């Protein structure tokens, strides 16, 4: 869809465009629409001055006895001319400076930015006043002054955009191919920068219109032109307030508001389209929380966490999308369970839903998560808070973002301890935090450092120390070693496994690495497309994989004991949530799929004690 079509469909954009359209029509056809010619000189009597609105003068008359409505129509011309011409100048200067500063960088770039910074700290209106006062008040001068002084915001925006685009890999690729600077700018950089510049243009226009009316109001407008600011200036300085002539004051003011509001709306709509910001956040109220009065069927004594038939949905423009569809598995006390699968198979979503930490827009319309005889999915938030971290903790993926950058690591551990046990003094909690940091191999001395002072591996260790703060019963670790170096990965996994065993915690390890699961877990749950493909003890599943997906996955990972073995690939890609296949989720990529797989979803077949898989090929085994 073209951008102007999208703009028209955007509610804010459409209203803004209509508002601007009205002004444009009025400006063009002012001589036809206006009942009087405000530029014509006429004989005026005292009665004509500040005459109330009547049939002859719909908006009354002004201090010179002229028709306000007519002046209003003609005033639109000056506003639009100044707005568009000044904005053009500002954009040309700002765009050029921004692109050069951003793309070339170096001494030239920083020099240009210094100049920009200088103009940013000089108060714009004061400077405009001074310059117009010196060079003289003509429409041309006003346009030039507003335009030449209005480029700084554009320059900053374009520079930062260009900088970002310049660092992007496809620009690097173009450079590696051997493309010159100009072709890269034209083909790769400009197309990315222009849309945002368009949004900025609209804002620059509205600022220019505001500037013009302000200058005119302060008596620095072009005296030969009728503009809205000028009308206000005359009315205000010539007694409209004491005469009570609101009609001479309010219409021109509202006209300015009308134009600026219209442009601002269009600008915001464009910004919305080209640079969608995060609209939602974690502290929004959870939606679709179900109520439940009866207690769930308790799990067996040795089960720490029981996930039953869990369903997770996400809101989308085309209706709810099912990300997790009926997942069930148990985590026994002190046991570690590996949750594996390709990216987008729903493994992280399952565990976030189980801990009620789904991102906004996600909800859990079905299933239960039983922990200590309570269903977590329906537990009121304040009761759930009691369980968090003291009994259920999580090690997040990418510890850089999971730790608050402006608070020390020790402080963040202390907070976790004290929020659940306020009998502990701050210093006692800090002592505990230091112990924990020592335990994970960071050293107690680094408690007062900030996350950015840690290396990636150290941050992940700090995250583990944080998770251990209240000695939870269940710990969920989401890809704890992704993006770390091989040796650091081994260090961190080793630490996690050892501490877990020593403390006797149950753990759910989310990972895409079947090798890691084999080395550190008791059970494995293989997920594909939001459902469980196979689950069982690690021994069973790795020795006798039943589901074709599990088998292929095991063939796709390297085995250092057999370096000569060729790895296989599973052709195709995992299904998208909005294009889930009607039958078995894996059928489109399965080499053994037959007709039934494409139309019907297989149930779970029990293969052995605690070992089950969902595939029609296993039907002879006992169905659940």
């Amino acid at each position, binding site marked *: 869809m073209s951008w102007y079509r999208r703009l028209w469909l955007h509610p804010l954009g459409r209203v803004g465009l209509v508002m601007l359209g009205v002004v444009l029509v009025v400006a063009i056809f002012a001589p036809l629409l206006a009942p009087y010619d405000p530029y014509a000189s006429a004989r005026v009597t005292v009665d004509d001055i500040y005459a109330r609105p009547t049939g002859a003068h719909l908006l009354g008359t002004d201090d010179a006895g002229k028709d306000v409505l007519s002046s209003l129509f003609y005033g639109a011309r000056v506003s639009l001319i100044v707005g568009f011409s000044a904005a053009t100048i500002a954009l040309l200067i700002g765009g050029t400076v921004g692109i050069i500063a951003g793309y070339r960088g170096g001494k030239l770039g920083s020099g240009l930015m210094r100049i920009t910074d200088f103009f940013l700290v000089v108060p714009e209106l004061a400077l405009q006043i001074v310059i117009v006062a010196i060079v003289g008040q003509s429409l041309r001068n006003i346009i030039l002054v507003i335009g030449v002084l209005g480029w700084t915001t554009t320059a900053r925006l374009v520079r930062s955009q260009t900088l970002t685009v310049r660092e*992007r*890999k*496809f620009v*690097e*690729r*173009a450079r*590696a*191919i*051997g*493309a*010159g600077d100009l*072709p890269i700018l034209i*083909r*790769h950089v400009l*197309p*990315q920068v222009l849309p945002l510049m368009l949004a900025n243009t609209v804002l620059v226009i509205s600022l220019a219109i505001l500037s013009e009316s302000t200058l005119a109001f302060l008596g620095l407008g072009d005296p030969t032109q009728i503009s809205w600011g000028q009308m206000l200036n005359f009315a205000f300085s010539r007694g409209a307030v004491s005469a009570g002539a609101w009609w001479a004051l309010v219409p021109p003011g509202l006209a300015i508001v009308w134009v600026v509001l219209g442009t601002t709306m269009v600008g915001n709509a464009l910004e919305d389209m080209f640079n969608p910001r995060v609209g939602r956040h974690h502290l929004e109220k959870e939606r679709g929380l179900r109520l439940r009065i009866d207690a769930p069927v308790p799990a067996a004594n040795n089960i720490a966490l029981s996930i039953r038939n869990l369903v997770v949905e996400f809101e989308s423009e085309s209706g709810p999308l099912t990300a997790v569809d009926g997942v069930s598995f148990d985590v026994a006390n002190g046991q570690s369970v590996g949750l594996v699968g*390709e*990216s987008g198979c729903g493994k992280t979503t399952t565990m976030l839903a189980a801990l009620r930490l789904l991102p906004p827009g996600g909800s859990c319309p079905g299933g239960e998560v039983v922990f200590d005889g309570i269903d977590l999915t329906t537990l009121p938030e304040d009761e759930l808070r009691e369980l968090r971290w003291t009994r259920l903790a999580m090690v997040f993926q990418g510890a850089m973002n999971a730790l608050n950058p402006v608070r020390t690591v020790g402080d963040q551990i202390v907070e976790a301890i004290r929020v659940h046990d306020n009998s502990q003094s701050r210093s006692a909690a800090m002592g505990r935090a230091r112990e924990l940091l020592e335990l994970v191999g960071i050293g107690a001395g680094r408690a007062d450092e900030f996350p950015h002072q840690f*290396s990636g*591996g150290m941050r992940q260790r700090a995250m583990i120390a944080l998770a251990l703060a209240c000695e939870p019963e269940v710990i969920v670790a989401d890809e704890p070693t992704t993006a770390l*170096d*091989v*040796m*650091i*990965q*081994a*260090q961190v996994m*080793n630490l996690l496994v050892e501490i877990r065993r020593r403390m006797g915690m149950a753990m759910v390890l989310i990972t*895409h*690495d*079947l*090798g*890691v699961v*084999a*080395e550190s877990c008791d059970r494995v749950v293989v997920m594909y497309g939001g459902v469980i493909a196979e689950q069982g003890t*690690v*021994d069973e599943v*790795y*020795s006798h994989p039943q589901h074709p997906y599990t088998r*292929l*996955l*095991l063939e*796709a*990972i*390297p*085995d*250092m*004991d057999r*370096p*000569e073995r*060729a*790895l*296989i*690939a*599973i*052709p*195709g*890609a*995992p299904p998208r949530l909005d294009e889930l296949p009607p039958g078995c989720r894996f059928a489109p990529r399965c080499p053994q799929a037959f007709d039934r797989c494409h139309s019907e979803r297989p149930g779970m077949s029990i293969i052995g004690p605690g070992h089950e898989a969902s595939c029609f090929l296993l039907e002879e085994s006992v169905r659940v």
Partner: protein
Amino acid sequence: MSEPVVIVKNATRSFPRHRTIGDILTRRPATEVKAVDGVSFTLSPGEVMAVVGESGCGKTTTANLVMGLLTPTSGEIEVDGLDLGGANRAALREARRRIQMVFQDPYESLNPRMTVYDIVAEPLRVHKATANRAEEKMRVEQSLEFAGLRPAARFGGLRPHELSGGMRQRVVIAGALVLEPAVLVADEPVSMLDVSIRAEILNLLGALATEKNIAVLMITHDLSTVAAYADRVAVMYLGRIVELGPTLDVMTDARHPYTQALLSVVPVPHPDRRRPRVILSGETPDPSRIPPGCRFHPRCPVAVAACESTDPADVQVSPGHTAACLLVTE
């Protein structure tokens, strides 16, 4: 074996550390970061070689040296008969045509606003390599089909966001091979892709070498998957190649303690089989402070006194297999 197309001889590349006003006032000497410190290897047409190491080991700098994106501080780098150290702009531009690159992130390395056809045709247009549109179309489609995007006509009109990660990486590869380069440098070609499709991309890179006689240099941190697809492996630590040899030799008979440690921590995908793991403590030191003697000795589990003072030379253990360690004997 044919003549090597890439010859790297004792290449060094250092970056000066920024000196602050305080440093100059206190007469602190200018320091430098030796990212690559005396690296030598050759690469022949049709051969796949992997450079393996952790972050900060100098593998990316090595790749940039071979690409001609950086010039060596000392040493020689010759690609396709051209000395990259002393080449002028025009020669470098020609070299760009002979050396192509595949990037790590297939989601980022394709311009989202261009069609697959335009992305693949871009190198041809930049180098004005085709006489007319028909020839361009033919070569783009050939490349797409070779990269496994068949039928080419259907894929040409798509935009990157309509493709899966694996298919995007195929587009990147198609764009790299359209100029029929002599050398292809692949920087972590599969690390952003799911395990299930890594093999097919690596197989495709292998096919480029065997069928198009291109020399492929793969840069990776992943000794287990990526390196296994190479003919030879070079293991780097702190700017130096510590072990180099035919892949199977290195995997089954690693000699350098660092290589042995790297191999030992690769998880074994079976619970019944356990191997002794050598987990090195600490992190790779800052390349501006390379330890004296053997650069690996502070972390080496088997270091002896001599390692603290002697920087070991490369020792040949078998034909084509060398390791730089005092404890390794011929």
